[in-house]
């Protein structure tokens, strides 16, 4: 701090016109602050947006089943790639998308799995006896008291095939491929127990290459 010289005034001429200078000073300051706040503020928003997961708004249509393979009144349980389970129920037989309704099978009360009861024409949650009508609106139990309903997924039918709309953020988990589980309670189905045999035990199974 060696220099203690007098600090000259940076704006000598304008001093003579205080009001204009004030006005000028005020507006130039205002613009400066606005410019700085706007520029760096928007940058801060860009950074914040970057930190949040990308929102493509893009939706992928995933194949569920052929329209003819689900009988009226029955339900199949579908699992989206990021693990959410969805009940897809068929209510009519016109062959259009509005025959079907896709509702999350997770109860909005405390997260138990909700099942379709064809004999009672309702969805039922066994944990606290929550019930839902076919459109997903809660009719009894704790979710009914809270006025909750089951979240709905969009379905489309193209060329006799049923597709469910899944947001693309829910599609990929980079390291491990997504998981979809299809269990048809009615009629002949696949054996869902695929946990028994691991690929590495091939050597002992005697299975010849296809």
């Amino acid at each position, binding site marked *: *701090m060696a220099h203690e*010289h007098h*600090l*000259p005034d940076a704006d000598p001429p304008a001093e003579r016109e205080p009001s204009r200078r004030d006005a000028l000073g005020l507006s130039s300051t205002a613009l400066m602050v606005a410019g700085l706040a706007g520029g760096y503020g928007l940058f801060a928003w860009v950074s914040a947006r*970057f*930190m*949040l997961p*990308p*929102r493509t708004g893009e939706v992928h249509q995933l194949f569920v089943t052929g329209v003819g393979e689900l009988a009226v009144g029955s339900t199949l349980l579908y699992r989206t790639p990021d693990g959410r389970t969805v009940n897809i129920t068929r209510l009519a037989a016109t062959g259009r998308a509005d025959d079907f309704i896709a509702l999350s099978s997770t109860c909005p009360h405390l997260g138990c799995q909700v099942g379709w009861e064809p004999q009672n024409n309702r969805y039922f949650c066994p944990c606290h006896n929550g019930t839902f009508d076919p459109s997903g609106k809660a009719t009894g139990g704790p979710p009914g008291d809270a006025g909750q309903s089951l979240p709905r997924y969009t379905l489309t039918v193209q060329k006799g095939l049923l597709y469910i709309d899944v947001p693309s953020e829910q599609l990929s988990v*980079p390291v491990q491929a997504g998981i979809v589980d299809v269990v048809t309670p009615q009629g002949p189905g696949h054996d869902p127990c695929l946990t028994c045999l691991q690929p590495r035990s091939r050597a002992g199974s005697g299975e010849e290459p296809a």
Partner: protein
Amino acid sequence: MSTSRDWLAERVPVSIEGLAAMSNEPVPYHLKRWWFALGGTPAYLFVVQIVTGVLLAFYYQPAPATAYESVRYITEDASFGWYLRGLHKWGATLMIAAVVMHQMRVFFTGSYRKPRELNWMIGMTLLTCTLLLGFTGYSLVFEQLSYWGATVGANISDSVPIVGPMMKQLLLGGEVYNDRTLSRFFILHGAVLPVVLILVLMMHIGLVRLHGVTELKFEGEEEKPARYFNFFPEHFYTELIIGLTLMILLSALATLLPVGMGPRADPLVTPDVIKPEWFFYTAFRWLKLFSGTTAVLTQGLIVFVFFFWPFIDDWLVRRFKYADISVWVGVAGALTIMGFTMWEALVAH
């Protein structure tokens, strides 16, 4: 209002006026010549690098299996990822360019001379840190050139006598590039080097404040009365202008010359052309002109001269009785470095 100020004053016992006086260091008028602001430029860019670097680290994964994919995710999937990555990459280029320009300004204005020799050496340390940041940063992308550039760099440091092999082991975490190498580079790039740089920078700025900025007077110039202006707000505004100009420039570069993804690193495939980043072209070209130990030793000598230049300059001036000898040495050096850089840039091998 005053009660809240009193409330604060009781808990943070510092005098505002005293602070203002301390910070409002008067700045010599010639500093208004914009190229004296070249010191603040790399400092500002360093802040940009820290901010963008921290943001990028939200998504970057420093493991060989997933590093490339995480960079791809940033570039292609994350919102504005391409932009922030672009800012970071161009920020690195501009920062190094700004440091070099600042160093040139200091050199050609003789501001390293007594009593500021130590600050020159501290500045050289800052330059080294910046270059190492550039080197380690690029290695993180895990493209072909990242991997092979790191391998070649480590092998070059290996050829330094005595300490070389240990330096290589320290850098790679082993004899060759392995699974632990990338984490090393990441820690160096993201933690060790930035902290070292900040600490050394504080020393650098501290010394500048203590000594004051060099008065510049051309030969034959009239002796004018010394004039000063306030650091705050005048010079601060200058710095703001520089900062905003840099942000606009960086935005433009990130947008018009976006950063892409080269091929993924493959330890089994050596690319035909391995080159380091542009700021190492001179050294690379030098090493290719001379073989092995000669190259490394001569380069070490050059770095030594750079480092201790104030003392060498002092000796030269006394020996040749010519104050401006440094200017000619500087011009020759600058042209050589630029020539070597261009040469390396234009040829494949």
